[in-house]
């Protein structure tokens, strides 16, 4: 590549060439995993049902129906309400975790993650047991009904809470103690410190959390489908078109419409992220909270309340998995865990899920971390790196349904040399990695931005190839982030439904899909049981991670100690 001014061409070292080749390879891979499959579906938006090109006709017909406007409005409404509830809630919770002296902090932190481990079916079932017509706490809703916007919002709050808490915990944990000392010295009131130091410090975290929650709610159809009632949202519109009427053209149109707000949200996030980097690289002195009775008591009670709500939903699902027939025969049984009775694949689908999740964790982590590194550290080559960045951001804005169908159209095309992948475990792994690419990529990028930017320059001056510095220095330093990505992928692979439901083959049915099928067959208790097994698996993996972190990796990371 020549630099801006003609006349000077900077030669490329072997490292540069290798890294550029890596970026090209990565871009190609992402194109195959994301870009082309998405296009394969979205292009149908310009065709009629027989595959004839019709230009914008489908768009015109869709935009001229009043239903679109209503669905779009509903989507925005649910997303806004959920965001308005989740973000303050998560902020207080994250504040409690990072800025107060909380007894058994690790436990509260663990509990806040539970919703991530659960398939979205689980809160659906639990909410019906809790607030449905026969529910224990039906009275709490007054005249309202769980079927509709109330139910969607409650379930979405549950589902989005850990995402927002994770982001805000990170944002609040990186605070600079010196600012608080300065404020103290200046005799600022607590209120004033909160509004002038704490909030601005977490500003980017707050914006990020709000955008992530907003996008999650916009693209999720599982919850809206199960307890949404008549409340139409854009994501269920896609479902209606694609699953209800097998109308891929209109499905593609709605999918494209759905991309717009989500893409916009992510554009804002990009801008914010860019500014945040500077914030993190400041030489901060970590803040260690000092005990303060009244404050600590308040936040402990708050955390207890939130944890109780989360545990109530999980507990309800566990209990629901142990009863014979809701609500008319509440005697207990373990029969619901004998999955062979409800699904011909029995426990096989569970082991398939575990294998798939492990595959996605290994393949995805290697790809995401190496990819983020290549994209961060390659010198020049701006265009190609921009392409990678764009592709990496795409999946967050894409409903799984759209991606899954796109995979069929793309990978199953008879002239695609990759169609040997179709109907194998491989395609499930690839699809899952693609589906969850954005967050992993962001995590890796953030971790890479936090380490010294000059490692590569030092290696070049010492004539050490970059890949060596990557394996010997960069990757070991980022080990915590790498493990986080792996866990994130594992956990999501265990629960994902919307995309893989189109892609499994007879031998590769997944537990999360089986749970949906079992629930559809009316065997709610068995579906709850399968969900519980999934939650426990993910929780066990996370617990193993924490324990390993404490004992094993502590030894690997002696160098962190001062």
């Amino acid at each position, binding site marked *: 590549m020549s630099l801006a001014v003609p006349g000077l061409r900077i030669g490329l070292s072997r490292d540069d060439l290798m890294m550029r080749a890596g970026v090209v390879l990565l871009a190609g891979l992402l194109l195959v995993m994301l870009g082309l499959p998405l296009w394969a579906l979205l292009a149908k938006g310009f065709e009629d049902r027989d595959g004839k090109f019709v230009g914008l006709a489908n768009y015109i017909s869709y935009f001229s*129906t*009043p*239903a679109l406007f*209503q669905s779009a409005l*509903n989507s925005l*409404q649910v997303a806004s309400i959920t965001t308005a509830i989740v973000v303050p809630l998560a902020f207080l919770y994250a504040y409690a975790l990072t800025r107060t002296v909380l007894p058994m902090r690790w436990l509260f932190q663990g509990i806040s993650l539970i919703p991530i481990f659960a398939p979205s079916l689980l809160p659906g079932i639990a909410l019906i047991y809790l607030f*449905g*017509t*026969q529910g224990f706490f039906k009275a709490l809703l007054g*005249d*309202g*009904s769980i*079927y*509709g*916007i*109330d139910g969607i919002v409650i379930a979405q709050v549950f589902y989005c809470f850990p995402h927002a808490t994770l982001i805000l915990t990170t944002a609040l944990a990186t605070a600079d103690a010196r600012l608080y000392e300065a404020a103290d010295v200046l005799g600022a009131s607590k209120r004033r410190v909160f509004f002038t130091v704490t909030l601005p410090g977490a500003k980017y975290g707050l914006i990020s959390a709000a955008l992530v929650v907003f996008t999650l709610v916009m693209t999720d159809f599982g919850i809206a*489908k199960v307890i*949404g*009632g*008549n*409340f*139409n949202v854009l994501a*269920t519109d896609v*479902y*209606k078109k*694609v*699953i*209800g*009427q*097998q109308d*891929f053209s209109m499905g593609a149109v709605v999918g494209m419409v759905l991309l717009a707000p989500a893409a916009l949200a992510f554009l804002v996030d990009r801008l914010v992220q860019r500014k945040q980097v500077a914030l993190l690289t400041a030489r901060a002195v970590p803040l260690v909270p000092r005990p303060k009775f009244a404050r600590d008591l308040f936040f402990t009670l708050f955390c207890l309340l939130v944890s109780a709500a989360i545990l109530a939903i999980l507990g309800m699902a566990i209990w629901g998995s142990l009863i*014979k*027939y809701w*609500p*008319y*025969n509440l005697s207990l049984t373990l029969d619901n865990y004998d999955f062979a*009775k*409800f699904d*011909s694949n029995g426990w096989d689908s569970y082991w398939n899920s575990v294998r798939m999740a492990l595959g996605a964790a290994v393949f995805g982590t290697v790809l995401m971390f190496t990819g983020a590194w290549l994209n961060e550290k390659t010198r020049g080559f701006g265009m190609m790196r921009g392409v990678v960045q764009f592709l990496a951001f795409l999946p967050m804005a894409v409903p799984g349904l759209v991606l899954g*169908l796109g995979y*069929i*159209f793309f990978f*199953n*095309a*008879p002239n695609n040399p990759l*169609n040997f992948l*179709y*109907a194998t475990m491989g395609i499930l792994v690839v699809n899952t990695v693609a589906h969850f690419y954005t967050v992993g990529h962001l995590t890796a990028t953030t971790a890479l931005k936090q380490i010294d930017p000059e490692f590569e320059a030092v290696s070049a001056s010492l004539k050490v190839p970059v890949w060596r510095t990557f394996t010997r220095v960069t990757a070991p330093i980022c080990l915590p982030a790498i493990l986080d990505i792996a866990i994130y992928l594992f956990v999501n692979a265990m629960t994902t439904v919307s995309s893989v*439901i*189109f892609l*499994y*083959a*007879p*031998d590769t049915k997944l537990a999360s899909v089986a749970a949906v*099928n*079992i629930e*559809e*067959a*009316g065997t*709610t208790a068995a579906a709850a049981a399968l969900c519980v097994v999934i939650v426990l698996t993910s929780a066990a993996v996370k617990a193993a991670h924490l324990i390993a972190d404490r004992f094993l990796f502590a030894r690997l990371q002696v160098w962190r100690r001062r």
Partner: protein
Amino acid sequence: MIDRTILRRATLAGAAALAMFGLASPAFAQKTRLTVYTALENDQLDPFKKAFEADNPTIEIAWVRDSTGVVAAKLMAEKDNPRADIIWGLAASNVGLMASMGMLEPYTPAGASALNPMFLSGKSPQTWVGMDAYLSLVCFNTAEGKKGNKPVPTSWADLIKPEYKGSIVMPNPASSGTGYLTIAAWLQIMGEEAGWKYMDALHQNIAQYIHSGSAPCVQAAKGERLIGIGLDTRGASEKTKGAPLELVVPKEGLGWELEVTAIVKGTKNLDAAKKLADWAASKKANELYAKTYPIVAYPGVANTPPNYPPNLEKVMVKNDVEWMAKNRDRILAEWTKRYDGKSAPKAK
């Protein structure tokens, strides 16, 4: 000493078994693996597979099972490079569309002539062959009815009475085939104008249009709702599990839909697929269907599965399948305009 002899014998036996297995394995490999796409109920899969494989030991069934919409969407999306060998148990309306798109391999199974003609595609050779009919009826929760002192309805007309306000659920026709056949039946029984007027009135009593044909009866069974309009089989199976449910057949008649078998064009296992198509049309197969469905294709094998009202054939409306297919887009558009999304619960 004795122990050791036993041990040695066991080892020998094991080795022999291993050798046999080794010899036998090529035989396993010769088995044709038939990929079958289906929307049959989960608990039907095993008995169906076992029964067929017992009669056809060289063929092994590999199921891809999901809800009707997902399976249909998958089949249509795979159109250019089909992965399914055969469809066994999918709604006739979906399969009919695939036939019109040339996605099916026409084949008249041996013994098709013995079937009730209503269950055949009418083409020669047949594009699809029916197995059973399922109905959209009314599931009434007697326990909740007693609590609220609500009478059991006996007709569609009963359902628009104000006492059922907010206590009825039915499938959303835009997302569920069952939903569509239900409203198509009303439009056919009552005529279009009266049909829409009926739905206007019914809309006042509807609590929710659900994105599933089976969920309404399940919700009624669990007391979430008093009344569910939806799939008969699910109502019956919930009742078997102990739900206080009554399956009501409205006297005006019922909408229905066929579940069918069809060979997918382009299959690499055409012979095996034909064998399955033959078997699926046999009396033996129909006897198996009759365990869960009250109405099957083979005349005379009809028995009544547990918890079904008797004589259901009599109340099936005269269903013009072609009319249903032709008018689908128009009716759904009209339905969506009238009822969908308008009824969002008021935000409190």
